[in-house]
């Protein structure tokens, strides 16, 4: 009896400890969300999206340039990170076990761990210094470099989940290897790959450091890829460190918008994944 009670006791203690750890982990998230919503909602209005910033110190205005800038920057980043990432993911899964595939995987994991500020400096070196000015293009490159390893690794992992019998089925019908990969295996993993891309987008949309040296910032509305461009994150940084209450409020509202964007991306990703799992039955 005593042994049994002990066992139950120990089990209960561990379960309680796990529960407590989860709570502790969730508390900061809850605080951030509550605080962000409380502060952000005040300044959240249509003006934020449709108006340009007012001159310093003047109340009102919005951050239209910054939101458009972030869209352009993340769009540029995906434009070159998605093809490179997906293709290297295909390589890693198709030639798994080969030396190059192992090296590529290691490189991707390392790149994923490189601090974003370092990636910003790298992009500064290759895309800003040679042209002697900051540009949206350089910002897109910096964010793209951050995105590549995420997309590559998700693609690889999802392709590995596709049963080998799919490939055999395609080959048995007279498909070449490339044909089997791109007409059967990649489409089978596509919803998952899209999910990976969406999550990568959510991740880079919130980056500030790589943009400080690359796209810099722009108080004006710009869609010129060769000129500096505003971004939501850099704008939040500038506003938050300014001396004006109105800018502080706008920074909160913009931060709330960013978090909501990430939230929606995660939800969409979950929804797609759930659907795929249903399909796999």
């Amino acid at each position, binding site marked *: 009896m005593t042994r049994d009670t002990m066992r139950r006791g120990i089990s209960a203690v561990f379960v309680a400890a796990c529960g407590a750890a989860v709570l502790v982990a969730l508390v900061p998230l809850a605080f951030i969300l509550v605080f962000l919503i409380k502060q952000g909602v005040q300044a959240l209005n249509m003006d934020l999206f449709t108006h340009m910033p007012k001159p310093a110190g003047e109340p009102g205005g919005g951050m239209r340039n910054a939101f458009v800038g972030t869209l352009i920057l993340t769009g540029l980043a995906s434009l070159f990170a998605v093809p490179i990432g997906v293709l290297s993911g295909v390589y890693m899964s198709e030639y798994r076990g080969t030396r190059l595939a192992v090296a590529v995987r290691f490189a991707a994991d390392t790149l994923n761990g490189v601090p974003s500020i370092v990636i910003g400096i790298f992009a500064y070196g290759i895309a800003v210094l040679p042209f002697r000015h900051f540009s949206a293009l350089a910002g897109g490159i910096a964010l793209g470099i951050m995105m590549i390893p995420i997309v590559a690794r998700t693609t690889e992992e999802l392709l590995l989940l596709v049963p080998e019998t799919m490939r*055999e*089925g395609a*080959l048995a*019908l007279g498909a070449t290897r490339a044909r089997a990969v791109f007409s*059967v295996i990649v*489409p089978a993993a596509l919803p998952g790959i899209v999910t990976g891309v969406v999550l990568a987008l959510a991740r880079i949309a919130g980056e500030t450091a790589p943009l400080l040296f690359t796209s810099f910032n722009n108080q004006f509305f710009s869609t010129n890829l060769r000129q500096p461009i505003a971004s939501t994150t850099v704008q939040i940084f500038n506003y938050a460190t300014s001396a004006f209450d109105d800018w502080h409020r706008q920074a909160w509202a913009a931060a709330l918008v960013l978090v909501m964007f990430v939230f929606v991306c995660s939800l969409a990703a979950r929804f797609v994944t759930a659907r795929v799992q249903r*399909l796999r039955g």
Partner: protein
Amino acid sequence: MMAVTMVKPPTPSATSEHQSARTAVGPVKIDVQSLNFYYGAKRALEDISLHIYPNIVTAFIGPSGCGKSTFIRTLNRMNDVIPGTRVEGKVLIEDADIYASGLDVVKLRRRVGMVFQKSNPFPKSIFENVAYGLRINRMAKSRSELAGRVEESLKQAALWTEVKDRLQESALALSGGQQQRLCIARALAIEPDILLMDEPASALDPIATQRIEELVYNLKRLYTVIIVTHNMQQAARVSDYTAFFWLGKLVEYDRTDKIFTAPSEKLTEDYITGRFG
């Protein structure tokens, strides 16, 4: 297309079972000569030689691990995708060595279709599954021709009436038996000459199995069918010739009725009477 002029094996009299004795069969379709197969250093097939005849069903039987699946996969070079494998000997299909250097494996697989143990429909619609082989091999010139060939293949696989109203639905929504018949339809769509079936009914319930067996029996009018099975009753029911494999060797190969009533080898008799395996 099938060579229709080919000398047909004498058909059994209408009343007798399909396993009824035959004295002669047509020309040799597949001629396997001293075939050895290796997974790395391990020899999985030892010195296999046999003739497979056209327009009949040939069954490969034997206990698990006897090499029957490995052997059927050498006939369309499906083992090529497994790293570290090696083939010695010859496999001639209508006198052409399929392991000759420079042979186009893609063309070979177009002629030698395959149905796998576990049904493997693509995660696409029913229609697209059957159309896949036609598309990649550019076998249909127009949409209507494509649709016609898809319909014809589904009819041949005895699946058409069940799916004709939902061709655009996902193939994964079909039952296990339907999925396997879809895979058969997919293989038939590209008009192969030879159809390899690697335990096509092993994962199916008895009713679905029966449908597959009826199908196999009917398909031999148009195709040379080779079926691997671990189910001896199935071999007896559907096949005309049976090859018994044991530990990578071909123990006995003869007419199915002979194998099941008067086998020459003691080992064969022990196996079919259930003394081992």
